[in-house]
């Protein structure tokens, strides 16, 4: 039984597995082990066993210990990771260890720990803060919260104050509060399912039927449904039917953490009989481990999660849903740069199960695949609420009308009109802060970041200038460092400035800003969103955070402040992204009975993008863009890979990239490798950046080249002074 040789995956940047002897312990494939590595110990996962090793037996080190009582990682997950690591040119061990929840990466047994809540006692109710030691602000704060709410969980207390633990300890000593120990449980209510069942239209019924009839084999679908056409309802009905077997599991991928709680609560209220867990990076370590283990054990039936959950171990997986499949957040931007939708497709193919990709504005890659019949197309072109018409979209030509504080008079009139009717408006501007530029009008000096090649953004409410690339902050300078003028001029518009303008124009209206700054802190966004739904907000102004998935029945006007900058972007995907963003934003208007209106301020109202938008014609827009891509041989008509590099000195970057470029040209005639170039933002955090783009009409050629190129790049000394990475199917150029 003993002294077998174990093949172990470790989180080290090397392509190989590591051989260890089992040291007389009984070890299974898929178990976590602790191994000596150099002069440290590391966590590894046993991937296989062998009887031969290149290392002589006497030199082979033994593992230190094995973590029993933990579920094993299964063959299916190994094979997915293996494929992903080869496809994305990333070491297998690193890929495997890094998809595990952080608790499983730590050197200790992973136990889902107890959860504690704290409840106020009779004594605590009788006493007031007077009987507590004086001058303890946190203590009193916690005490008052518990007096009011009776019982609070750890995370709730954490939201009240970071120093809650000390306060609770004192309160327990006083006998004012007691600890309540709970084993984490999946909350499933007993009732079978919700009574409310909306009537489906014919398109929805057809879509559901088609998927359910074909379950049990690999069948990819694009569920192309306009905004408000009831895609979520289709998902839920499909899940209900596919999961009617008591074992089956489903994976539902969503783009943003912010969307997860919303979808989760909708699923939970409708599919009450099915245990649902979520997996995303906003969970704390133990929640994540807990949910991961539930998924792995097969107890959780529906797993809703962001991109990382595509690597969750799901032994009974029978269907995958990828909501908003076009969304950029499915692409991982560091480490192994995988695309969760593509991994999901691969998983579905290997498991021979259906996968549904839903979107109102599918990515061109996916759209193209339906055209060549690789994916089946399911169309929903009617709004689910029958009275809800598609919003009327109009462009306001800003080259012909005056703009005051970022807004045309047509837009302000439209907002006033909604205020009179008691309806809500939403303004969309994809730039947070007060203004993107601080300009000296006397000498045209502009405040720019010292570490990045970009301008500093004015955040007037906090009186700071900040760089949105490196995060550095400084107080707003008193005078121009170049000429001394004190009257510096914030130029351009951000969410805060539009918020100010709205408050000035409509002093009685309740204005709410939604951007990364206004939604810091747990539950802040969901609080805001529920305030909107319960009509406590008249005007919303925000960034793309507002664009997705939200359902505000009383919102009838959407105003787009300024999107023209996206029309000038050098990235070939910019117009595709802008279109889908505007389509999504527009979709927020008039989702219930009231008709919606969308007003877009632009200097290019005749641009074909806006024409397609006005007609709600994604298909036509996609045709035009696909033609462009075909002519320029960009995806989906070709496959891209990108080598990015950065260093303090650009010479190091250039020399490395030049070397990569030379080898690539030498090794492959089929792959077109472009010269090293600099991205739009040349320097970030003091690092000079550059990249080489590779393009091939066949994926095979690209990967053939990479398999010889990457090892050479890992070896070269030119790489020692730089940081570099490889991005397969890059979503953003630069």
């Amino acid at each position, binding site marked *: 039984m003993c002294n077998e040789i174990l093949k172990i995956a470790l989180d080290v940047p090397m392509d190989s597995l590591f051989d260890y002897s089992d040291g007389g312990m009984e070890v299974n494939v898929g178990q976590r082990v602790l191994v000596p590595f150099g002069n440290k110990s590391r966590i590894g996962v046993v991937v296989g066993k062998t009887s031969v090793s290149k290392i002589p037996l006497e030199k082979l080190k033994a593992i230190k210990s094995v973590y029993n009582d933990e579920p094993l990682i299964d063959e299916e997950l190994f094979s997915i990771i293996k494929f992903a690591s080869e496809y994305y040119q990333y070491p297998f061990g690193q890929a495997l260890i890094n998809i595990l929840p952080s608790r499983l990466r730590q050197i200790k047994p992973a136990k889902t720990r107890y959860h504690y809540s704290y409840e106020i006692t009779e004594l605590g109710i009788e006493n007031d803060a007077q009987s507590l030691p004086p001058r303890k602000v946190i203590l009193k704060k916690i005490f008052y919260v518990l007096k009011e709410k009776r019982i609070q969980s750890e995370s709730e207390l954490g939201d009240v104050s970071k120093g809650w633990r000390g306060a609770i300890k004192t309160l327990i000593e006083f006998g004012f509060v007691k600890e309540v120990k709970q084993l984490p449980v999946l909350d499933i209510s007993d009732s079978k399912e919700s009574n409310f069942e909306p009537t489906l239209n014919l398109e929805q019924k057809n879509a559901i039927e088609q998927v359910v009839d074909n379950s049990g084999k690999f069948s990819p679908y694009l569920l192309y449904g306009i905004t408000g056409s009831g895609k979520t309802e289709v998902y839920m009905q499909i899940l209900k039917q596919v999961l009617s077997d008591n074992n089956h599991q489903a994976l539902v991928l969503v783009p943003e953490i912010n969307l997860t709680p919303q979808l989760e609560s909708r699923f939970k209220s409708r599919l009450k009989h099915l245990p649902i867990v979520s997996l995303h990076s906003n969970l704390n370590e133990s929640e994540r481990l807990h949910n991961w283990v539930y998924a792995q054990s097969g107890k959780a039936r529906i797993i809703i999660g962001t991109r990382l959950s595509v690597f969750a171990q799901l032994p009974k997986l029978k269907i995958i849903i990828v909501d908003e499949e076009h969304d950029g957040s499915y692409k991982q931007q560091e480490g192994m740069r995988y695309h969760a939708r593509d991994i999901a497709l691969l998983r579905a193919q290997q498991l021979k199960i259906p996968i549904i990709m839903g979107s109102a504005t599918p990515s061109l890659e996916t759209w193209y695949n339906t055209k060549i019949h690789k994916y089946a197309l399911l169309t929903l072109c009617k709004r689910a609420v029958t009275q809800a018409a598609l919003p009327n979209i109009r462009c306001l030509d800003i080259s012909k009308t005056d703009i005051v504080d970022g807004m045309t008079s047509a837009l302000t009139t439209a907002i006033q009109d909604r205020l009179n009717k008691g309806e809500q408006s939403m303004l969309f501007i994809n730039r947070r802060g007060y203004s993107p530029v601080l300009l000296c*009008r006397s000498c045209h000096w502009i405040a720019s970041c010292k570490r990045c090649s970009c301008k500093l953004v004015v955040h007037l409410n906090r009186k700071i200038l900040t760089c949105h690339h490196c995060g550095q902050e400084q107080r*707003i300078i008193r005078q121009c460092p170049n000429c001394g003028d*004190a*009257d510096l001029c*914030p130029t351009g518009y951000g969410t805060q400035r539009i918020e100010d303008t709205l408050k000035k124009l409509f002093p009685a209206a309740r204005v709410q800003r939604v951007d990364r700054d206004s939604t810091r802190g747990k539950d802040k966004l969901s609080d805001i969103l529920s305030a909107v739904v319960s009509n406590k907000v008249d005007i919303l102004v925000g960034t793309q955070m507002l664009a997705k998935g939200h359902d505000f029945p009383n919102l009838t006007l959407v105003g787009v402040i300024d999107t023209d900058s996206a029309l000038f972007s050098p990235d070939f995907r910019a117009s595709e992204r802008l279109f889908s963003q505007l389509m999504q934003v527009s979709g927020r208007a008039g989702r219930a009975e009231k008709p919606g209106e969308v007003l877009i301020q632009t200097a290019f109202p005749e641009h074909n993008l806006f024409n397609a938008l006005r007609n709600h014609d994604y298909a036509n827009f996609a045709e035009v863009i696909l033609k462009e891509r075909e002519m320029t041989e960009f995806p989906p008509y070709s496959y891209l890979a990108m080598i990015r590099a950065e260093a303090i000195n650009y010479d190091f970057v250039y020399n490395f990239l030049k070397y990569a470029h030379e080898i690539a040209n030498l090794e492959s005639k089929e792959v077109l490798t472009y010269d090293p170039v600099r991205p739009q933002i040349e320097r970030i955090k003091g690092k000079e950046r550059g990249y080489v783009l590779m393009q091939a009409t066949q994926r095979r050629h690209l990967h053939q080249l990479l398999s010889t190129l990457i090892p050479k790049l890992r070896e070269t000394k030119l790489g020692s002074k730089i940081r570099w990475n490889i991005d397969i199917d890059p979503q953003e150029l630069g």
Partner: protein
Amino acid sequence: MNTLATNLLVITGEIVKLDDLRYTPAGIPLLSFVVLHVSMQTEADMQRKIELEMPVFAVGALALEAQKLEVSDVVKLTGFLTKRSLKSTQLVMHINKIEIN
């Protein structure tokens, strides 16, 4: 640049327009107003009538002081001239002293 180069303007006039106090991004108060200057001046031994409107900027403590002024107040201002902005040819006065007549 010769920092001692002379740029001194002393002018009296009546306030004809007074803007609201505003603040620079760094929080320095700033007030702009316009004075109407009317006088008789001598030029080549000839008397002539002068009438002009002068845009004026007061920054910092002077802005708070100027805020107490009202339209039709007559003031004597001491300060210097500069351009309104880089590409503008219009001159504006920035002040260091206000005296109320």
